[in-house]
């Protein structure tokens, strides 16, 4: 496989910030020109002018990688890491500043579904329009029309202006058109963040078809780690405009999750957050944070967070308690720590809190935490309680061959330890 479909070499993209800003008017240009002229005539620099010099910002730098035919490559990274810029260059929306990309085959990009949809036009009209914008020929759209409509499940509303569609219908129609493109290279950006769960599954399935059956190449950008694990065969991790990792998706997700320079760990400033339940405020939560920049945990990992607490009164003893909720708000379980040494009045301390392997099923969760005294056996008092905080996600287990474990929602949110079974000696 020496002939990559996409080959990116030393790619860089520079943006200008501030002075070179977006909608400068002719007047600005004329004024700028005049000032430059005056400066040249006067032979000295205008001290104020330098402050307006545009700042440079490299959204991408020295990015090189190759993608082979039929690969599904995940591109992951934090917001601002350069993912969108990379995709925009690959789909020829913007030009790189340095370096080059070689592409074999047609590229279609789904940077956002529904691009070019016009609210006044009907579903039927928008299918044709959107298809044409995405690069389909009219004959091709006509051929796939019924399939698109069926996929989107909007048969009854074909002649209704899309402005009267529900947002779900709108997204389904938009994705349906896009999903029926047949490019050699498909660039997908976060389109799975839309629609209901069932439709998302349908979309994932469609994408897998595209890659596996038809041998096409897919570039998939997402924050949805389970989807990255499930769909991709390789992944690159971008950070601050550079590729910091390229390899298997499991390691990539690990790199992404652990690239946790603690200075950029997720912090929840909760000092002034509204309290649904008031404690006695003998102490107050100032902030809560995870030990990583992306609040994603692998299955089986310890759940760990750091709480910064300020004591108002003297607190010789204190303990923490926590309830974990599913994204839907159902409590999964609760726990208390043992009372331990507290802190003096006016003092502030950061405390590490660990729940050893909670065996949470893959999914999204959030917590309620409290600091107080006592426990569930002997009665307790809470100083301060924070709800709806410390949102995090648990990733599915990844097996040896890159397989992802299944966990059906209906099985609950806790994965119990392995069952034991023993055949009893028969009484015969």
């Amino acid at each position, binding site marked *: 496989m020496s002939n990559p479909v996409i080959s990116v070499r030393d790619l860089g993209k520079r943006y200008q910030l501030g002075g070179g800003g977006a909608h*400068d008017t*002719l007047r600005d240009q004329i004024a700028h020109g005049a000032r430059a002229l005056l400066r040249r005539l006067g032979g000295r620099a205008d001290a104020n002018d330098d402050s307006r010099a545009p700042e440079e910002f490299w959204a991408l730098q020295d990015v090189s990688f190759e993608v082979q035919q039929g690969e599904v490559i995940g591109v992951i990274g934090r917001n601002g890491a350069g993912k969108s810029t990379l995709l925009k260059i690959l789909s020829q929306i913007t030009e790189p500043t340095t370096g080059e990309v*070689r*592409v074999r*085959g047609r590229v279609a990009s789904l940077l956002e579904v529904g691009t070019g949809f016009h609210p006044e036009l009907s579903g039927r009209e928008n299918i044709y329009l959107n298809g*044409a914008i995405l690069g389909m020929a009219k004959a091709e759209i006509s051929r796939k029309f019924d399939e698109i409509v069926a996929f989107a499940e909007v048969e009854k509303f074909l002649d209704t202006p899309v402005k009267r569609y529900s947002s779900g219908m709108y997204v389904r129609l938009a994705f349906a058109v896009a999903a029926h493109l047949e490019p050699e290279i498909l660039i997908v950006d976060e389109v799975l963040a839309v629609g209901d769960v069932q439709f998302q599954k349908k979309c994932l399935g469609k994408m897998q078809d595209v890659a596996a059956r038809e041998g096409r190449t897919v570039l998939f950008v997402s924050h949805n780690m389970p989807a990255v694990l*499930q769909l991709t065969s390789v992944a690159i991790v971008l950070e601050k405009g550079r590729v910091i990792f390229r390899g298997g998706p499991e390691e990539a997700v690990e790199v992404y999750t652990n690239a946790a320079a603690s200075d950029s760990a997720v912090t929840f400033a909760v000092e002034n957050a509204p309290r649904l339940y008031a404690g006695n405020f003998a102490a107050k939560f100032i902030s809560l944070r995870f030990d990583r920049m992306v609040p994603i945990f692998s299955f089986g990992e310890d759940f760990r967070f750091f709480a910064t607490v300020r004591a108002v009164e003297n607190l010789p003893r204190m303990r923490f308690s926590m309830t974990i909720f599913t994204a839907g708000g159902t409590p999964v379980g609760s726990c208390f720590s043992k009372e331990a040494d507290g802190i003096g009045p006016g003092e502030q301390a950061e405390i590490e809190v660990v729940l050893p392997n909670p065996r949470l099923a893959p999914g999204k969760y959030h917590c309620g935490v409290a600091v107080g005294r006592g426990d569930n056996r002997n009665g307790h008092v809470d100083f301060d309680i924070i709800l709806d905080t410390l949102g995090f996600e648990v990733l599915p287990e990844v097996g040896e061959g*890159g397989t992802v474990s299944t966990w059906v929602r209906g099985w609950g949110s806790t994965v119990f330890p392995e069952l034991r079974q023993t055949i009893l000696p028969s009484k015969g």
Partner: protein
Amino acid sequence: MVVDLSTIVRPPESCLDASGQTRVIRSRKGWIGVDVAELWRYRELFLFLAWRDILVRYKQTALGVAWALLQPFLTMVIFTVIFGRLARFSSNGAPYAVMTLAALLPWQFFSSALTESSNSLVAAANMISKVYFPRLIVPASAVLSGLLDFLISLLLLLAVMIWYGVPFRANLFLLPVFFFAAFLTALSVGVWLSALNVKYRDVKYVVPFFTRIGLYVSPIGFMSTLILQKFGPVVHFLYCLNPMVGVIDGFRWCILGPGFEPYWPGFFASMGAAIIMLAGGVVYFRTTEKRFADVI
């Protein structure tokens, strides 16, 4: 639901571009010409966008397409009263209303094409920052979208010609040629303005002013020969550098016949000006389009 690498099959035959070549994306420097082959590949999108503009224009309007008749009709009436009756400009023996309407049709096409196309790129900002396609299609389809209005207003012209008993001459068959000239003229200005508008939103203020002034500066309420009579041949020739002068003279010739034959050197100067402007506009457009998505 796991991608099993072993199921990934050979690349499909269609994997390569039609040309079988590798496309290279890199920073382009200097002046950039037009990729005609690519524009041709996207011809359907060009038509689709014009079609969309037309559909959208008259959705949720009470009078709908009647607007395409009403506007030129009322302007014709006003011009006939003011210039024909009050100012008593010469119409070279032809009915004044027909002479004015013959000029109003291409002018209306031109001015609405200008308004639509100058704003077209900015209005398509969402598309431009999400999908690749040749950007030139956007202002061009905006110009084309005026075609329907133009065709409808031709009906008005026919009615007025019948009303005044103006004979239908063979010259009428040349109308498409002069319409094409009007299209080129509108496109040449539209390409400039749409690209400038991406960076300088001043264009928004320039265009209405421009079309309003143009209505009086172009020979709509009078004949271009009036300039020759009043100011002499040099000024008249310079006047002809306004491409709409050539277009309007051509329209009048088609509709009113021999007495209205254009001043041909002036006409070719008009068209030359339009073509030079179009070429310059396209180069400016192509050279700045790589920054559209960043700036828009």
